[in-house]
Structure formats: C-alpha cells, structure tokens
C-alpha cells in the first residue's frame, strides 16, 4: 500500500489545490508543501525497509502466495484441471516460453479459464526470476484484463534510490519556489503532478503502466517550461516535447512488439525477463535499439542531446532542478530495468558494447569542451550534466559489478550535485537577473555563506574525493578497467584513457567558472549590495550539500542499498552469457 501512497499522494495534493481559488496563494503553497513532505515521509519509510533487518515480503513469496490464493478461489473441478497443467510447465529462470498443448488449450478454453491461466503463468514466471528476490512491497491488481495489463508496482535497490531522490528534490523545489507569483495555482498543481508521475515511472513494473507514467511526465514539463520559462521558453518547450515524443513513440512500438512476440503475451516486465532469452537474437537487437534510442534521448546521449541546454536555460530554477536531478535519470533507469534484462543477448552484442563505450566517451569529452565554450551559466551546468552522464554509459559498456554499481551511483550522485548547482545558479540569477558568466565577479566576498555551499556543489561535481561525485567516478573507472582488461574488449582500453582525461577537463571548466563568478574583483557596483542567501534558499540547498558530503565520506550507506539489486542484474546476464 506504501508505494501507491507514494505515487498518488502528490496527485491528491494537486487535485486539492485545483479546488482552492487562485487568489489564496499562501494556502496553495502550504497544501503543496504538505503534499510533497508527506510523499517524502512515505518514501523515507520505503527506504527504511532497505536498511532494516527484516525488509518484509519479497516479490517471489508474494507471487507464490498469490498463485495459491487465486487457485484456491476457483471451483474444485477447475482447480484439479489447472494444477496438473501448471505443475507440468517449467517456470525456472530462463523459461524461454510457456506454451500449451492442443489438449490443454481445449481444456482451459472449455472451462473459460483462459484469463486465469494467463495470470497464473505470468505470476509463476515472475516469481522464478532472480531479480524478484530483491523486490519489496509488491502490489499487483488487475487493470485491463483484455490486454493482460496489471497495476504492478514494486521497489528494489535501484529504484528506491531514484524514488528517494525525486521525493527529496520535489520537496526542496517546492520550498525553493515559494516566491513564484505568476499563476501559482497552475505552477504548484503541475509540479505535484510531475512529482507523482516521476514516482510512478520509477516504481511501475508493468511496461504499459511505465509508458503511461513516462508520457505523463512530459505534459507538466511542457507547460512548466512554456509558461514560467525565460525569453525563448516556447521554442525550448516544444523542442523538449518533440524530442521526448520521438523517443517514446519508438518505445511504444518496441513495447507492443514485445507483447506480441512473448509466448504467454504479457506486459509484466519481470516475467518478460524470464521470457527474454527465448526471443531470437535479431529481434532482441531491434528491441534493444528502439529502447536504446527512447532512453538515450532522455539521458541525453550525444547525438540527441541538443534539447537539454535549451530546456535548462529557459526553464525556471525549480523546474530545471527537477529536470537535471531526476528526469535525466529516467533514461539511465530505463537502461538498467528494460534494456539489459529484456534484451540480454543483444546487450552483449559487440556492436552495442562499442556504441555504448564510444557514445559514453564522446559524451564526457564533448560535453566538457562544450561546457567550456558556454557564455550562459545555466547552459554550462547543463553541458556538465551531459558530460557526467557519459560515465553512466561507460559503466554500462564495461558490464562488471563495480562499473554497473558505479553507473547507478553516478545517477544518484549526479542528481544531487547538479540539483545543487542549479539551485546555486538560481540564487545568483534571482539577484543579478542575468546569467552571463563573464559579467559576474567577486561574489565570493559579497556572499560568503553562499560561496561555501557553492564550493561543495562545484567540487562534488568536479569529482573531488571526500564528496559523492568521486565515489561513483572511481567505481566506474575501476570497474571499466576490470571490464576492459578481459579478453574480448581489451582494444577498448584506449577509450578508457580518453574518458579518464575527462577528470582534467571537468576540473578546467569548473574552476574557470568559479574563478570568473566567485573570485576576482567585483565588476559592477550593482553587485555590492547582494544579500547572502535567505532562509528559503538555505533550506533548499543545505540538505543536498550535507548529503553530498555524507555520501562522499561514508558511501557504504547507499552502496548497501544498491549492491544487491545491481549485482543481480549482472549475475542474470552472466548466467545467460554462458
């Protein structure tokens, strides 16, 4: 029940806000804050389950009990018709396909049990998958029986980190956007809708449900950028919308193809994982490509990244914090949840491994160089996000325990550090009303406390040891070295060396920015009377800075959560590889 609460609490708050007349701005803000903090409170409970000794029922037990329950709810003769057939079938992990013989088909059809049989097979397959052992708090209700679509929601290490991130950033952004005056009712209801859609994306395990939440994220973003954005906001909004729509329609085709080519036709991602080895290699190849493009546009990977700088430059600060902090992770999350388990043999295909490695390196190096060339502070931070996401691709190309875990951790860390950086830029923008880096100068003296937090933010994204950026980078590098020193892909080692140069390039453009913005003479008199950050900004920034430091010094905190579920993905791949 906890997960559905987490998903729909912000939505309910949004609906409540719709009924408050627009002139009670303060009431609207308070309600939205309550909604977001409640959602964060629930997320804390969910994350708590991962730290406590007895984390509660895992998914495979859940499904075994559900199978027993559905069987016992049937009439007696139906039961003894189904039980033998069920026993005859093989549901162990790589169960390529589950087909019925002619006789069984007729028997089941005779008793009008097709739908029940379909549900039982799906559940048995899902409970066989190793990943199910790591999933907690499963919820499984019938939604659209005619297309075997279920409201199927669960959480594991990989998704809990991103759910925690989106809940935290959601709450902090609502605190930060306390001074939004233009159509506040619209802003806060859309923002809460966005948060609940994001929670939905990370928690849903039914492909159709995932796709619905994936697209629902699109709508509020379009309006948030389009209405409250900067001068070229309309252009940026439609550009963002079209880019993501191209990606998601390709995903739609892949989703439907998967549904029709899986033998007990299902949208259930976990049982698809069990059926995936059954697909032919080139079918998996095309599915991997379609899903890859869909997710790559969101990550943004090199050729599809041009929407990100525009969206960031034009979006208002809280929106670009959520955009950088969480939306970019949807793509990365998609790779781990959908691309690898559902197209296992295609993901080991040398073509894709090379593509991931090369695109990752291009992202890192090209992103860094572009960041150096930017005049606008926000687009600089946007390009730095592109550069940081390159590590995730590199980690995935290497496909070892350390590099995969490093990539997942990099998603979480980059979420924190880029969110913090965008808040920093927002603070400066609110005072100076412009973002041209060269016109800033000497802010360090004016606003010491702010500069302190800025140092934490910038050095976290620089990858300074002692802050969280370093942990994921070092894990990706170590993992990638392990991965690339093994026989098949030793010739990719040169790519690792180029990627390593990234740490120097990142240092260059970040320090150059710090020098131009925070240090040096105060260029124009107007900056003299900048006040230091007020309570609202402080509350929204300090938790993230503290998290950056804590995770940097004591990474075991989050690694214990991530390790089981990321290792299980790698084990599944290795098991199929042999």
């Amino acid at each position: 029940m906890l997960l559905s609460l987490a998903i729909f609490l912000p939505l309910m708050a949004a609906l409540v806000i719709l009924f408050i007349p627009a002139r009670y701005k303060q009431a609207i803000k308070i309600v939205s804050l309550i909604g977001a903090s409640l959602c964060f409170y629930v997320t804390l409970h969910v994350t708590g389950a991962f730290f406590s000794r007895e984390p509660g029922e895992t998914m495979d037990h859940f499904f075994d009990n559900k199978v027993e329950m559905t069987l016992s709810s049937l009439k007696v003769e139906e039961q003894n018709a189904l039980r033998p057939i069920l026993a005859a079938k093989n549901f162990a992990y790589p169960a390529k396909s589950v087909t019925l013989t002619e006789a069984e088909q007729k028997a089941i059809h005779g008793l009008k049990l097709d739908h029940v049989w379909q549900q039982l097979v799906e559940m048995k397959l899902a409970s066989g998958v190793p990943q199910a052992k790591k999933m907690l708090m499963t919820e499984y209700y019938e939604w659209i029986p005619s297309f075997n679509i279920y409201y199927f929601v669960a959480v594991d290490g990989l998704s809990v980190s991103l759910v925690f991130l989106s809940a935290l950033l959601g709450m902090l952004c609502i605190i930060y956007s306390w001074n939004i005056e233009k159509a506040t009712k619209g802003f806060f209801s859309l923002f809460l809708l966005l948060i609940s859609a994001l929670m939905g994306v990370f928690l849903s395990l039914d492909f159709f449900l995932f796709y619905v939440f994936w697209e629902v994220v699109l709508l509020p973003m379009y309006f948030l950028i389009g209405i409250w954005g900067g001068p070229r906001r309309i252009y940026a909004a439609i550009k963002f919308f079209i880019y993501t729509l191209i990606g998601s329609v390709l995903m739609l085709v892949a989703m439907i193809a998967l549904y029709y080519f899986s033998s007990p036709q299902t949208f259930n991602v976990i049982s698809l994982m069990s059926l995936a080895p059954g697909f032919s290699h080139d079918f998996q190849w095309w599915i991997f490509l379609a899903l890859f493009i869909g997710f790559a546009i969101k990550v943004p990977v090199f050729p599809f990244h041009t929407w990100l700088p525009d969206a960031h430059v034009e979006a208002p600060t809280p929106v670009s914090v959520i955009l950088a902090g969480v939306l970019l992770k949807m793509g990365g999350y998609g790779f781990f949840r959908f691309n690898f388990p559902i197209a296992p043999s295609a993901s080991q295909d040398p073509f894709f491994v090379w593509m991931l490695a090369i695109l990752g390196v291009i992202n890192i190096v090209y992103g860094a160089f572009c960041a150096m060339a930017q005049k606008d502070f926000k687009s600089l931070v946007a390009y730095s996000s592109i550069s940081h996401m390159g590590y995730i691709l590199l980690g995935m190309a290497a496909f070892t325990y350390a590099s995969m875990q490093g990539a997942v951790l990099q998603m979480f860390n980059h979420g924190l550090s880029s969110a913090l950086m965008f808040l920093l830029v927002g603070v400066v923008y609110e005072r100076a009303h412009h973002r041209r880096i060269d016109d800033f100068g000497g802010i360090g003296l004016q606003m010491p406390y702010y500069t302190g937090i800025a140092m934490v933010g910038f050095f976290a994204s620089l990858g300074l040891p002692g802050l969280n950026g370093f942990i994921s980078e070092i894990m990706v590098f170590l993992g990638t070295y392990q991965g690339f020193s093994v026989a098949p892909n030793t010739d990719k080692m040169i790519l690792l060396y180029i990627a390593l140069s990234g740490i120097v390039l990142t240092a260059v453009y970040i320090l150059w920015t710090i020098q131009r913005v925070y240090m040096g003479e105060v260029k124009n008199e107007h900056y003299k009377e900048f006040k230091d950050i007020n309570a609202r900004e402080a509350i929204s920034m300090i938790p993230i800075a503290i998290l950056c430091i804590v995770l940097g010094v004591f990474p075991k905190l989050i690694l214990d959560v991530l390790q089981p579920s990321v290792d299980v993905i790698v084990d599944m791949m290795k098991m199929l590889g042999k």
Partner: protein
Amino acid sequence: MDKTTLTFEQFQPLIARFLADCQWFWPELLLIVVIALLLLSDLFLPRSKSRNLFFLAMLGTVAALLLVAWDLFRQTHGAVLPKGGEYPFPYLFQGMVIADKFAYFCKIVVLAGTIGVIAMSYKEKRFNDYTMGEYYTLLLSSVLGMLLMVSATDMLMFYLAMELTSIPSYLLVGYHRDDPKGLEASLKYIIYGAVASGIMIYGLSWIYGVTGSLKISQISLGHFDKLFSGLVLLMVFAGIAYKISTVPMQFWVPDVYEGAPTPVTAFLAVTSKAAGFAFLLRLVHALRVSEALPASLPPYIFAFAVIAALTMTIGNFMALNQKNVKRLLAFSAIAHAGYLMMGVCVFSDQGQTATLFYLAGYMLMNLGAFYIAMIVANATDDDNLTGFNGLGTSAPFFAGSMSIMLFSLIGIPPTVGFVGKFQLIASVLSSLQTVPGWLRLSLILLVLIAVLNTVVSLYYYARILKAMYFEESKHPGIAPSALNTVTVFVLAAGTLGLGIFFNWLIEGAKGTL
C-alpha cells in the same frame, strides 16, 4: 415471363415476419415520428420560438439511444425472436438490415455523437435568427440514414442509407443562406458527393451483374480477372472513402468543414465518419469470411495500407500551416481517418475491435474539440487560431479541457486517444505473424509512418496549446452557460476516464465480432 407471382397465402408469413421484425426497429421508428413532429411543429411555432425545438430533438435522440440500449438488453436476455423467412433472426426485413451487436455498438456511438451535435446547435450563436425546425428535421433524418447504414447488409440498403445521410447534410452545410462560405461549401459538397455516389452505384451495378445479388455475404469476386475485381471494388470503395474522408476522396473535407456551421462540421466529422467506417468494417468482414477472397487477401491489405499511410501523411502535413481552427481540425480529421484505416487494413478481428474502440474515443475527443472551437468562435467572432490567445488565463476550465482533447488527439497516454492508437498499432503488429514476408516489411513501415505522423501532429496541435497558454493577450472571456460547461465536462471526463478505465469498452468492442 413466368416469374412466380405470390399468392396471398405465401404473402401472409412475410407480413407476419415483417411485423415481428418491426419489434426490433423501434429506435428508427421513433426517429421517424420525431422528424414528423418537428416538421409539423415548425408550421405552428412562430420564428422566435423555433429555438426550443431543441428540446424535442434532444428528447427524441435520447429516447432513441435508450431504445437501442433496451433492444440490446432484450436481445441478450431471451426475448422472443422473430422466426420464419429465409433469413434467420439477426437479419431483419429479408436480409436488408441486421440487428447484431456490431450494429447496436455503432448506433450507440452515432446517437451519442448526435446528442453532442444537438447540444452544439442549441448554443451556436449564428443560428439565432434562423428557424430551427428544418435544421433539426434534416439532422435527424440524416441520423436515421446513418442508423440504417450501420445495420445495412445489402449494398442497395447501404446506397439508400448513404444517400439519406448525404442529401440532408448538403443542405445542413449551406444552412446559413447569407454566408458566402457556407454556400460555396455546400455547392462543392453536393457536386463532389453526387459524383462519388454515382461512381459507387455504377460499381455496385457491376457487382450485381457479376454475382447476381447485392447481399454483402454473397460478394465473392475471387475467381474474376484481377483488374476487373480490383477496379470494381475500388469504385465501391470510392463511395465509402468519400463518406469516411480517406485518400482517394478526401479533397472536399477542408472546404466543407471550414464553410459549414460548426455543429454541422462536428456532425460530419464524427457521426458520418463513424457510420462510414462501420459499413466498411462490415464489408471487410464479409470479404474476409467469404472463402473466395482469403487466399488473395494480401494485395487488398497492401492497398488499404497504402491508403492508410497516404491519408495520415496528407492529413498531418497539410495541417501544419493552417491558420483557421476549423480547417486545421478538418485536416486532423483526415489524419485520424488514416489512423482508423490502419485498423481496417489488417483484415483481422483485432483490427475491427481497435477501429470500433478508436471510433468511440474519436467521437468523444473530436466533438469536444469542435465544441470548444465553437464556443471560442462565438465569444471572439474570430475563426482563426488567434481567437484562442490567452484562453488559459481567461477561461481556465475550457482551456484545460481543450488541452485534454488535444493531448488525446495527439495520443498522449492518460487519454483515450492514446489507448485507441495503441490498439491500432497493436493490431497491425499482431498481424505481422500471419502475413507473408514482403507484406510484413510494408506493415512495419506503416507503423513507423503512423508513429512519425504522431510526432508531426504534435506540432500543429501544440500551436493551439501555445496560443492558449503562452500568448499573453486580452481574451474577452466566455459567457458562462450551464449546457456548455456540462457537455464539455462530460466530454473531457470521458476522454480522460476512458484513457484510464477502458477495459469495459474493449469488451464491448470485442463482443461485436
């Protein structure tokens, strides 16, 4: 010439069967009564009062809808079924008309659409100084024609029903006698429509000649020369294509939709398209079932696929630069006809359910779009997109529902548009397994074209969103009216609701197989 002449005894069972069949014909009969009442009342009512004929018309349509529902309920729960005659029950009146679940589903869709159109007509500002009696008469007779078209199983019945639908709509298009655009539209419409039905009936004559009967189930052209059967079927398809506005015969749509008064445009776009597709589905089902054709189905699949692709692309590309809202929605209607054709072209049960589902969903969202376009046109007297500027701030409710409609037309998930498009693409992809090699590639191409068209369509729909929310301009605001709010709310809630809880509609559409 010793053709058998019927004696009275032989004639008697026919009359009995006819009277029994009438038991199942109540909705149509009721409509006829209402039409008659409307005509009579028009004589007595003074011009100023003719507006409230709306209530009579609305009452009649709602009653007809309830009757259809009642018939459906009766049929499935053991009512006494008419016996005798060479055609078993579902066939009424000697096999001319059928009263199966498919017909009932489509009748409900058509009647529901009409209710929306009637509500629009009541609110259309420019109708104030016209007598509405004739308007509603023409409207309901056209609806009667659609109800017949939907349940026609005989080509002649289809031709008659099509004419009964088309001819009143020619007049409805030109109802504003002093509006040059309206007249021009109706002139073009009648010429184009007449030519199309002429071609169709000529094709039918050839089919009659070759197969000896006009019953759909007996149409089997498999063993004829390919060119002849192709040409004849295409001529028949030309007629249907004119009705459902797909590629060969879609040129009339932009001008007529722009010229006609908005309620009539909505009527043409929603209900007549639904009736046309219903008959096309019935024809396709007949072709598929009669064993004459199954072997040679792939070329028909390919031909329809080409038509679908062309319709989509032409509809979407032409809509890109439109200024006038109704003209833009006209091209979007063509595009949606293209998507619907995707469901038809796969010749499969899955395709049929997907098309029916999309028809129902399309009725909701398109009616909503036209309704709000009309309200905005009434408020600002500006047919172009600029009429929508600043609607977001001045009338948030209508702007919100318009956004829901637009997102549904684009095919964004939580709406019925997405679910419909999802099922259409699913039906095409599911037929991949049963289709020969070369066709599989073209069907995948069709799906890709459909997907890219969705993205292209996003652009011009988003221009309305841009006008509503991103343009800062003084908008006069919309006069509050109970009927407007209720209808728009019902349509918007329907679009959104069906987007989330749509299982019952799929079961209903599946039931029609």
